[in-house]
Structure formats: C-alpha cells, structure tokens
C-alpha cells in the first residue's frame, strides 16, 4: 500500500527491480521519466521497448512493458521491424552514445531519414560506460578516458558528434531535442521533451529523439555531485540544450 503522505512512489511503468546502475548515475532518472510518460499516456500495455548494448543493456528488467534486446547499435533497425508489422504499438529504443553514435550510426541515421514512427531516448554521458569508460564519439576534446589516456586529441581522435543537430537536418524527423539531467529544473524540461517524443509517435508524425546529457561518476572518477556540476559546466556548453527540430503539428500539442 502506498501511504497517503508519500511524495515519491514507484511509477506503474516500473517493475520492482533493484537498480544495477552506479550511485549518482542519471540512467535511473532517465528510466523513471520514460516510465512516468508511458503511464501518463496510458500506453504501457501497448509499448514494446528495445534495449541496447551498454550500461542500459538490462533496461528491459525495469520497465513493465514488453522488451527486446538488440545487438550493439542495431536497436533502431529492430524497432523498425517491430513497428512496421505492429504500427498501432508504441515502440521506443533506449540507447547510449557508444551504441547510437558509434557502432549504430548507420541504423539511427536511416531510421530517422525514413521517418520511422519511433521514439529514441539517447543517453549521452561522453564515454562507453559498460566496458569501463573508453572514449566515445561524444567524448569532449581533452577529456581523459581509458582509451584516450592523454586526453582526447582532436587532431588524431576526431571531434565530438552532435547527434541532435545532425539528425534535425533530416526530413523524416518530427521532433528532435537535447535536454540535460543535471538538476531538478532540467529534469522537468527533459520529461516534457520525452512526452513530446512519444506524442510524436502516437500521432504518426515521424521519427523523434531526445538526447539526454547524463553523468557517469564511476568512469569520470568524480563524486555524483561533481558529476552533475561537470555536466552543467562542461557538457552543456559543448552540447547546447534546445529543440533542434519540432514540426508545426507538435508545437500545437499542449501537455
């Protein structure tokens, strides 16, 4: 029973599973926002999630919806296969930056270009979390990771990829935004964007993605609090927040 004075309860969209994420990691926040949105839209029953390979490989343990587990980077292709045969279901992928922006670049770009009616939750924490903090395409210039131990040198290791800006150029995209999870205000704004991304799909308005700037205290070697500060002070300037594409029909949606 939920006590009457409870201010924070488990959303209906969650199963009773203890988290496997590290303390201070914002994956848990992102999961919760998705679960709340699916519950508020009353679509848990007809939702099929696609989990990636990365820290969120076990995302399927937490959501009380059907779930499949994709090969590394291929979640948008699997989601395409599901949505094309079950167009009345809600299908979403949940992907990290190694999964989506590195090995899965082909799949994500073409799912967006085809205007697949999918929702993509993209967690950008500037490194490969699960394998122990290697450099990702999103790693900031100069940032030290286990595979860029002298700091990312853009001369030899290239520049960060700005996925939200890039995908926003494609005509098949209905909604594409970047938000951050570093404080309460931004978490509220992130939830609104996630809602719009699922509303885009529910209305058949094309591909929708929300990029979420996130923490990785363990691999960054920071306390949870300092990780949040790092996002605010270093990630947000490099990855500006905002709506990069929002079609007219979605602008009209009042939540």
């Amino acid at each position, binding site marked *: 029973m939920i006590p009457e004075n409870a201010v924070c309860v488990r959303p209906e969209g969650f*199963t009773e599973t203890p988290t496997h994420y590290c303390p201070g990691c914002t994956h848990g926040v992102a999961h919760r926002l998705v679960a709340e949105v699916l519950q508020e839209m009353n679509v*848990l*029953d*007809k*939702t*099929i999630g*696609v*989990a990636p390979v990365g820290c969120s*490989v076990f995302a*399927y343990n937490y*959501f*009380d*919806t*059907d*779930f*499949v*587990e*994709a*090969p590394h980077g*291929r979640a948008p*292709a*699997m*989601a*395409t*296969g*599901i949505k*094309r*045969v*079950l167009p009345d*279901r809600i299908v979403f992928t949940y992907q990290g930056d190694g999964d989506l922006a590195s090995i899965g670049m*082909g*799949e994500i*770009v*073409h799912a967006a270009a*085809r205007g697949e009616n999918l929702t993509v939750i993209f967690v950008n924490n500037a490194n490969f979390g699960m394998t122990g903090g290697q450099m990702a395409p999103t790693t900031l210039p100069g940032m030290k990771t286990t595979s860029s131990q002298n700091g990312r040198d853009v001369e030899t290791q290239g520049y960060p990829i700005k996925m939200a800006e890039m995908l926003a150029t494609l005509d098949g995209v209905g909604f594409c935004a970047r938000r951050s999870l570093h404080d309460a205000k931004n978490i509220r704004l992130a939830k609104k964007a996630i809602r719009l991304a699922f509303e885009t799909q529910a209305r058949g308005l094309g591909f929708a993605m929300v990029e979420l700037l996130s923490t990785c205290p363990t691999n960054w070697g920071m306390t949870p609090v300092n990780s949040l500060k790092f996002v605010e002070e270093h990630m947000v300037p490099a990855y500006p927040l905002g709506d990069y594409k929002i079609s007219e029909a979605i602008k009209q949606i009042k939540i």
Partner: protein
Amino acid sequence: MPKELWKGNEAIAEAAVRAGLEAYFGYPITPQTEILEYLSRRMPELGRAFVQAESELGAINMVYGAACTGVRVMSSSSSPGVSLMMEGISYIAGTEVPAVLVNVMRGGPGLGNIAPAQADYNQAVHGGGHGDYQPIVLAPASVQEAIDLMVLSFDLAEKYRSVCMMILDGCVGQMMEPAQMPEMRPVHRENWDWATNGKMGKRERRILSSIYIEPAEEEKMNLRLLNRWQTIQANEVRYKEYFLDDAEIVIVGFGTAGRVALSAVREARAEGIKVGLLRPVTVSPFPSEVIEQLAGRVDAFLVTEMNSGQMLEDVRLAVKGRVPVEFYGRLGGMVPFPDEILNEIHRMAKSKMAVNANPRDAWLARMATA
C-alpha cells in the same frame, strides 16, 4: 494452379508471399536483387511490410525485430551480404525466434564475382555466426523446388523457432523455368506464447533477449538448442535419390552441381555404367544416415560441388573411410558441364582412388595433369 514461366528469384518472392510472408527487409546485391525488386511492388499491394534497408546489417536486424513479434518475416541476400548478416543470424538463433533467409550464392571470397557458386556451404551449414547453434539449411536445384522449399522454410522456422536458410546458386536464382505456384495462404498470426507484441491487457510482460549472463543458464540454453537440433536431425532430413538401387558408384551433389551431375548420370546409365545420384535437399540436417547405409553396399562415392570440397567433408564423415570418396569441383563462379562429370564417372568405372587417399589432393593432381 497451371504451370507458368517463372524466374527463380521472382518465384521465390511470390512463393514467400503465398506462404504468408508479412514483412520483408532487404538490400540490393547481385544475383538476388530481383527478390527485393519484386517484393517492393508486391508487399505494399497486399498491405504488408517492405523496407529497403540501409545495409544488410539493418535488414537482418529489422528481420530480428519483426521475428520477435511472431510474424512470418524474411530477408534475402548474396554471399558478401550474408556475411554482413551473420551477427544478426547469431542473435536470432540465440533468442530462439523463427526467421527465414535466402542466400543466392556467388563466387568469392571477398567481392568475388556475380557468377553462380556454392562456396558458402560451410558458412551456412556449420554456423557462420558466433556461438553454438545449428541453422536449418535447404538447397533447391530448380525453380520449382525453390518455390516448394520457400514455403517449407517458414513452416520449419516456426516449428523449431529456428533460423531456416535456403541456399541456392545464381543459376537457380536467375534461370527461368516452368513452375507451379502454391495456392495463396491467408496471413495467419499465431498466438505464440513467446512473442513480444505488447501486453494488450491480456498477459504479463515478455522479454526476448539472447543474454544469459549466468554461464550455467547459457549452458542450459545451449543444451536446449542442441536437443532441438537432435529432433530436427531425426525428423527433417530430406534428399532425392536417382538410380541408386543397383548403383556401384554414387555421386553426391546439391543444388546446381547435383542437377548437372544428374545429366552425367543419365548419359553414363545409357552406356551401361551403374552409377546413381544422391542430392541432399536439406544440407543441414545432412543426410548422413543414408550415405552411411550406401557406404555399406556401393564401391565408391564422387562428390561434386561448385566449391573446393566443403560438403565433401560431411560425406567423408558419413562414409567413415569404408569406400573411396572422390571429389570433382569447379570454383570461383564456374559451373561444371555434364561432360566433365561424365569423364570422372568413366575414370572411376575403370579405376578408383585408394580408400585412404586424400580426395582433394587427388582431384588437384588430376587437374594439374589435364
């Protein structure tokens, strides 16, 4: 249904549609592209799903996603493209969902060429993707057989929650022959107890994954696949026999190589040579038992393939060294003429290889002196 003139690739596509194909995902590659092209018109016409994917990686993972919902789904490709699909094929096997694939094989390795070949036998039959699994592999030798096996592929894939791959060479894919189409089956969605198609207020959530993080659980899963494979081996072996009753020499060949060999066998029979043909229709499960039985009563085998002797090893395993197993192959996209195989029959009718000789070495030595 009357017989009509069908091109192999288009016939395969139409047969799949009639077997209840609900979704096709593919990518252009010669010599299979007509399957993709045909279905780009036919599937939308019937309100079914068709996507030309961004790559074979994309295509196979779209197949994987749709397969998880329990519908009849397929992709098709040719050798280099199938190599790209191997990742997805392993995941599909590891998730135990049914999926159907067609490989219209061409010369290789690498980019190779676009001529007919059978060089992907090992890749198809002995796995290809990572991990412990065994796919069902069918090998038609004519347009009609390709149609019939296409329909069977879906039934077998569903029955065993397995990957079912049809391997044919560019000859069967590109050739036109009179063939009879099956009746159109209505699309029928089974209420599978494993499909992730949304709870829809009727059940608890389902998860489909190839992850077994505990090795002990993965071992159980591997054994489950192996037990299922034993059932498939016991029930699904298919082959064609020609003139085997009194045969002293038996040719073993699949697909086009088997069909060419049949012409040679007919000519040799006309000359009074007691030769027969065994043409495996399922190359996986392999008809080992019938070969083992034949080994007890014939004088020798001749394996003919359009590769360097890949099925040859499976025949040798079944024969167990009891009689000589000789080999004749053409490679790289070359198709043997019946005369080439007839020459081998003439040679073997006079003198056979020693039972302990290496058939591939002996064949190469003959080629060098020819």
